[in-house]
C-alpha cells in the first residue's frame, strides 16, 4: 500500500489555491491542506475543500458517442473523429465556429485556436470568456494596454481602500475576500456597489452603495465630479502618466449630481462619502466582476472605473489598479492563447501583419486576416459548431432561442467531461480528460501560471482536449502541424510565440510554488506580480481617459413586467453546476434553484417562503421556489445560475454590448406569479369553516 500527498491546484475558480491530494495506489482517497502555497496558505473555501468530489462521478463521459437514429451510441475514437473530419471537410471556413472553454488548459486552448485558423482557415474561434470578461479587453486595452488583472492577490492586502464594483467577493472569491479582511484589520475601507445586500454587503463592506441595477456609469461620473470639485484628484499622476484629462474635466464639470441621485437611487451624501474615501486613499484598489461586465454597457462601465482609477492615481502600484476578476481556472489563459475572434495568441490583433507573424511561426500559409464571429453570433449563424467544456444552452441568455438555433446546425460536436444539456442536441459527443488526469498549465486570475501534474488516469477512453484536437487535425491531413506527443511540447511552442510567456518553462513551474506571473520575458525573469509600475502598455505608455455617458439598461420594468430580474452565483455551487451538483456535500447545501423576493413584494404578490412561483419574462418562463428575504430590495428579483431545471437564462435578455458582445444578464424585466402550494390550499380550506 502506498499513500502519497500529491500537491495540485483546486479545479474551481481563478484564485488558484493549493491543495494536497491523498493518493493511494493511483486513486484519490482524500485531500489535505497545502500550507506552503502563497495564495491560500493551507485554507480552502467550501468548493476547494471538496475539490475532487466530481472527478469519480458515475456519469463521467467515458466513450466517444455518435448519434445514430436519434440516440447517442458508443463508438471508437477513429469512427467518431472520421465522421467529424468528413463533415468538416465539406464546411466552408465562414460556416465553422469553435467555442473553446475557460476550463481547458493553456495547451488545449492553444491547439484549439491553431486548429480553427490553420485547418479550418477561419478566425471563428471564441471561448466562454466572451460572455463575462470581454469588456475588460475592450475597455482596458485602450485605457491602459491590457485587460488582465493588474496587481496580484497577496498585494491586495497593501491597499487602504478597496472598491468592490459589482463583485460579491465573499461568495465568489472567498480567498480574495480574506485578503480584504486582512487589509481591513489594518484600517482599510471597503466600498461595495451591488443592488443586493449580499454576504459581502453585510459582513465585509464599510460603504454599501445599494444602487439601482445598471446605473454604475452614472455613479462613477458623479463620484469623479465630486472628487474634482473637492480638488482631490491626483494632479501629479494625471500630468505625468495620463492623456485625455481635458475632455474628461470638461465633461465632469457638467455632471448633474441631483440627476445622478435620481438615476442611481443613492443619496448624495453616500456617493460623496465613497468618492472622498477612495480619492483620499494612499492605495486604492478596484476589483470588479459581472456586476460591471454583464451589461449591454459593460465596456462603458469598465471604461469609467478605469477613469476613476487613473483620476485618483490608483494605478501602477502594488495593491492598486483596476482589476478584472476572471472567475474560471483558465479564464485568463484561454484568452492569452488567442481563443478570441479578434486576437491571435498573445493578444495580437487579427490583421494581415499578425497573420504573417504566425504564418512564419507555424510554417503555414494563408492564415485568416479578418476578425471572425463572436460567440453568440456563432450559435445563430453557423452550421458547423464545435463546443468544448461549456454549455451555451445554459450559459447564454434567451436559451429557448439558442436551442432552436442549435437544432438546425449540420454538425454539433460537444467535447466535455459530463453529459451536459447541450450534449442532448449534439451529433457527436467526445469524452475529455480533466484536471489531474493530464499534465497541463493554467493561468489564474492574477496572470499566475501554474502547472497541474497528472495524478490519476482519466476514465474509460477519455483523452486530454489537446489530444482530441490534434487527432482530428491529423484526420484532416495536418499531422505535421499538430505533431505533439505531450502537453510539454505544446507549451514550448506557446512560449515561443507569446512573448509574455517566453520565460516560463515546465521545469521552472515544477520548482516554483505558487507559479509565475506573466509578463515573464526570459528564463531568469522572476515574473511580474504588478503591471504598469513604470508605464502603461499603451503605444504612448500613458493611461487614457475615455469619457462615458450613462445609458440605462436595455429592458427596464414596465406595467406588464414590473420587476428587475438579476442573476448571480452562490458560494456552494459553480456556474452551470456540472461539478458541484455532483458533489454531495455541496449539493446538499443548495439542492435546487430559487428566486429571491423582497418581503414587501412577496406580501403584495401573496407569496410565502418556499412557495413554487412562475417567473416570466418576454423570453420565457420558469417555475422555481420563492426565497423571501431582504437580500434583494423591493422591485428586484434574483435567480442563481446553477440549476438547469430552473434556468436563469431562459429569462435573460440577449442585449449585447456593441464593443464586447457580452450580454446584459444582470438586468431585464420580469413578472412573478404565485402558484399556490397544493398543501397550503388544503389547509386553508380546512380552516375556512
Amino acid at each position: 500500500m502506498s499513500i502519497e500527498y500529491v500537491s495540485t491546484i483546486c479545479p474551481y475558480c481563478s484564485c488558484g489555491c493549493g491543495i494536497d491530494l491523498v493518493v493511494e495506489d493511483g486513486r484519490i482517497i482524500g485531500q489535505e491542506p497545502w500550507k506552503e502555497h502563497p495564495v491560500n496558505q493551507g485554507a480552502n473555501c467550501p468548493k476547494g475543500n471538496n475539490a475532487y468530489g466530481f472527478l469519480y462521478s458515475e456519469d463521467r463521459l467515458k466513450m466517444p458517442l455518435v448519434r445514430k437514429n436519434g440516440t447517442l451510441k458508443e463508438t471508437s475514437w477513429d469512427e467518431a473523429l472520421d465522421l467529424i473530419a468528413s463533415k468538416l471537410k465539406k464546411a466552408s471556413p465562414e460556416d465553422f465556429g469553435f467555442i473553446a472553454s475557460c476550463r481547458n488548459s493553456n495547451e488545449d486552448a492553444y491547439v484549439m485556436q491553431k486548429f480553427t485558423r490553420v485547418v479550418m482557415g477561419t478566425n471563428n474561434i471564441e471561448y466562454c470568456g466572451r460572455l463575462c470578461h470581454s469588456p475588460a479587453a475592450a475597455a482596458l486595452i485602450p485605457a491602459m494596454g491590457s485587460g488582465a488583472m493588474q496587481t496580484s492577490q497577496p498585494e491586495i492586502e497593501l491597499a487602504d481602500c478597496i472598491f468592490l464594483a459589482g463583485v460579491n467577493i465573499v461568495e465568489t472569491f472567498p480567498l480574495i475576500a480574506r485578503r480584504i479582511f486582512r487589509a481591513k484589520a489594518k484600517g482599510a475601507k471597503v466600498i461595495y456597489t451591488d443592488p443586493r445586500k449580499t454576504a459581502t454587503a453585510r459582513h465585509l463592506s464599510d460603504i454599501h452603495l445599494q444602487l439601482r441595477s445598471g446605473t454604475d456609469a452614472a455613479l462613477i461620473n458623479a463620484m469623479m465630479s465630486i472628487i474634482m470639485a473637492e480638488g482631490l484628484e491626483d494632479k501629479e499622476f494625471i500630468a505625468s502618466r495620463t492623456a485625455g484629462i481635458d475632455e474628461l474635466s470638461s465633461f465632469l464639470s457638467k455632471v448633474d449630481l441631483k440627476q445622478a441621485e435620481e438615476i442611481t437611487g443613492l443619496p448624495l451624501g453616500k456617493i460623496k462619502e465613497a468618492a472622498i474615501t477612495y480619492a483620499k486613499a494612499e492605495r486604492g484598489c478596484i476589483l470588479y466582476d459581472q456586476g460591471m461586465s454583464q451589461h449591454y454597457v459593460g465596456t462603458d462601465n469598465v471604461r469609467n472605473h478605469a477613469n476613476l482609477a487613473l483620476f485618483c492615481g490608483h494605478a501602477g502600484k502594488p495593491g492598486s489598479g483596476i482589476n478584472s476578476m476572471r472567475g474560471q481556472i483558465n479564464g485568463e489563459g484561454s484568452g492569452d492563447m488567442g481563443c478570441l475572434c479578434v486576437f491571435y495568441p498573445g493578444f495580437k490583433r487579427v490583421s494581415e501583419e499578425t497573420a504573417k507573424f504566425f504564418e512564419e511561426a507555424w510554417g503555414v500559409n494563408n492564415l485568416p486576416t479578418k476578425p471572425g464571429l463572436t460567440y453568440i453570433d456563432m450559435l445563430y449563424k453557423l452550421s458547423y459548431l464545435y463546443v468544448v467544456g461549456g454549455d451555451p444552452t445554459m450559459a447564454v441568455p434567451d436559451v429557448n432561442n439558442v436551442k432552436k438555433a442549435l437544432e438546425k446546425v449540420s454538425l454539433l460536436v460537444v467535447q466535455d467531461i459530463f453529459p451536459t444539456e447541450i450534449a442532448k442536441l449534439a451529433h457527436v459527443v467526445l469524452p475529455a480528460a480533466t484536471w489531474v488526469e493530464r499534465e497541463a498549465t493554467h493561468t489564474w486570475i492574477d496572470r499566475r501560471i501554474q502547472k497541474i501534474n497528472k495524478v490519476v488516469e482519466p476514465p474509460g477512453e477519455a483523452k486530454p482536449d489537446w489530444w482530441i484536437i490534434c487527432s482530428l487535425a491529423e484526420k484532416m491531413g495536418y499531422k505535421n502541424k499538430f505533431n505533439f506527443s505531450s502537453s510539454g511540447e505544446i507549451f514550448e511552442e506557446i512560449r515561443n510565440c507569446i512573448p509574455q510567456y517566453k520565460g516560463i518553462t515546465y521545469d521552472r513551474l515544477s520548482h516554483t510554488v505558487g507559479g509565475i506571473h506573466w509578463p515573464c520575458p526570459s528564463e531568469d525573469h522572476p515574473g511580474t506580480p504588478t503591471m504598469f509600475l513604470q508605464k502603461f502598455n499603451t503605444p504612448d505608455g500613458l493611461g487614457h481617459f475615455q469619457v462615458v455617458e450613462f445609458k440605462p439598461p436595455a429592458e427596464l420594468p414596465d406595467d406588464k413586467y414590473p420587476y428587475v430580474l438579476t442573476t448571480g452565483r452562490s458560494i456552494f455551487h459553480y456556474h452551470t453546476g456540472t461539478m458541484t451538483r455532483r458533489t454531495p456535500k455541496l449539493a446538499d447545501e443548495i439542492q435546487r434553484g430559487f428566486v429571491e423576493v423582497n418581503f414587501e413584494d412577496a406580501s403584495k404578490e401573496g407569496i410565502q417562503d418556499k412557495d413554487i412561483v412562475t417567473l416570466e419574462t418576454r423570453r420565457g418562463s420558469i417555475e422555481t421556489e420563492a426565497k423571501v428575504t431582504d437580500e434583494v430590495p423591493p422591485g428586484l428579483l434574483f435567480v442563481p445560475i446553477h440549476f438547469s431545471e430552473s434556468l436563469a437564462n431562459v429569462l435573460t435578455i440577449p442585449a449585447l454590448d456593441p464593443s464586447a458582445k457580452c450580454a446584459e444578464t444582470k438586468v431585464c424585466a420580469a413578472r412573478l406569479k404565485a402558484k399556490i402550494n397544493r398543501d397550503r390550499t388544503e389547509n386553508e380550506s380546512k380552516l375556512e369553516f
Partner: protein
Amino acid sequence: MKGDMYLAQSSDDAILKKSEHGGVVTSLLKFALESKRVDAVLAIKARNGNRYDGIPVLITDPETVIETAGSLHCASPNIARFIKEYLNGAFDMKIAVVCKPCDARGIIELVKRTQINMDNLTLIGLNCTGTLPSAPAKRMFHEEFEVNPSDVIREDLEEGKLTITLKDGTEKQKDLDELEQKGYGRRENCRRCDINIPIMADIACGKWGTDGKKATFIEVCSEKGSDFIEKAIEAEYIKVEKPDSRAIESRKKRNEEEILLARKWQEKDFASLREMSTEEKFSYWLGEFSRCIKCYGCRNACPICYCKDCILEADRGIVAPGEIPPDVIFPMIRSVHVMDSCVNCGQCEDVCPMDLPLARLILMLNRELGNIFKNEPGMDVNAPIPLKSVTDKELTVADVEIQF
C-alpha cells in the same frame, strides 16, 4: 524502565552525519522496521527537499528512513488525522510514529474515542517548543532575515532566539519575541503551548540536556518505550550513556523556562478576550463568526472531531443549509463538542480561510474546564473524557455545581 534517561547516539555514521543531533530517532525507526517490530513507520519528510513543504510519509523500506533525518520547523502536517483517516486508525498494521507532543496528544484523544488502536502504535515523541507556519516563514526569512528562503538548511528555536543556518554555513539569529510581536515567528498556538516534552508518548527525544554534544536525550515514558529502547540498544542501533545530574537539571530548567514563556503568551492572548464586557464579547465573537464561510476546514482538521456523520452537515437538519455565515449554532457546537479535549494542535487555525481565532477561543475554554475537572487532554489514554463521563463519587455530591 519508565523514567529511565539516556544520552544516546546513532551507531550508524551516515545517519549521525546527516542528523542535527544524535540521529537517534532515525536509527530507532530503522531498528523498528528491520526488527519487524512494526509494519511501517510514519515520519515527516521535506517533499522534494523543500523545508517548507513537510508531508507525512509512511515508510516500509528501512533504507529510505534516512531521508527523514533532521527537524523541519516550517511544517505542521496533521499526523493524528493521517492515522485516523488514511491508515484505518492503525487497526490493521503496527506503526512507529514520530510525533510532537500535540500529535501524540491528538492520537491519545482519538484512542479514547476508539478511532485509533494504541496497541499497534509506538510513539516516538519529539521535544518541541513550536513550529513556524510555512508560507509566512518564507516571507519572514525574506523580509526580516533578508535571506532567500531556499538557502535555509536548518532552523533552531532555542532560548528565545530563532537561529537559521544557510547553505554556505553562515548563521543568522533574531530575537523570537521581537519577531512574534511583529506577527512573525511561531504558529500562534505553539506560543501558548506549555507541553514541550512528550511524556505522553512511549519515549521523548530532544536536544535539551545534551549541552552541545552531538547526541539525543531520551526519556523513557512507558513500558513499551522501555522495551523498545532496550532492544534497540541490544541490537546496537544506538549507543547510550547515562546523563549526569547536571544534564538532567539543565533539561528540567529549560523546560520550565519555556513553560513560563508559554503561560505568559496564554495570559496575554486570553486576557484580551476575558477583559471585554459581556456585550463586547458578544459583539466580538459574533463579528468573528460572521466571516465563517462554512468550509468545514476546522472540523476536518480537528483530531477531536471524529464523527463520520457530523451533526453540523447540511443534511442533518440542525444547521440551515446554504447559508453563510452558517447559523450561530455552527460555531457554538464546533467549539462545545471539542472544548473539553482540545490538545492545542492549532490545525483549525492553520486551515481557516477567514482567519478566525478558533484555537485561541477553544484552548482558553479548555484551560478553564481543565481547572474545573482537573483534566489535561491527551496525556493518558485511561483518563476519561470530562464531559462524556461521570464517576460514582459524584453520586454523593448534592449540589448543582461541581468542583473536582
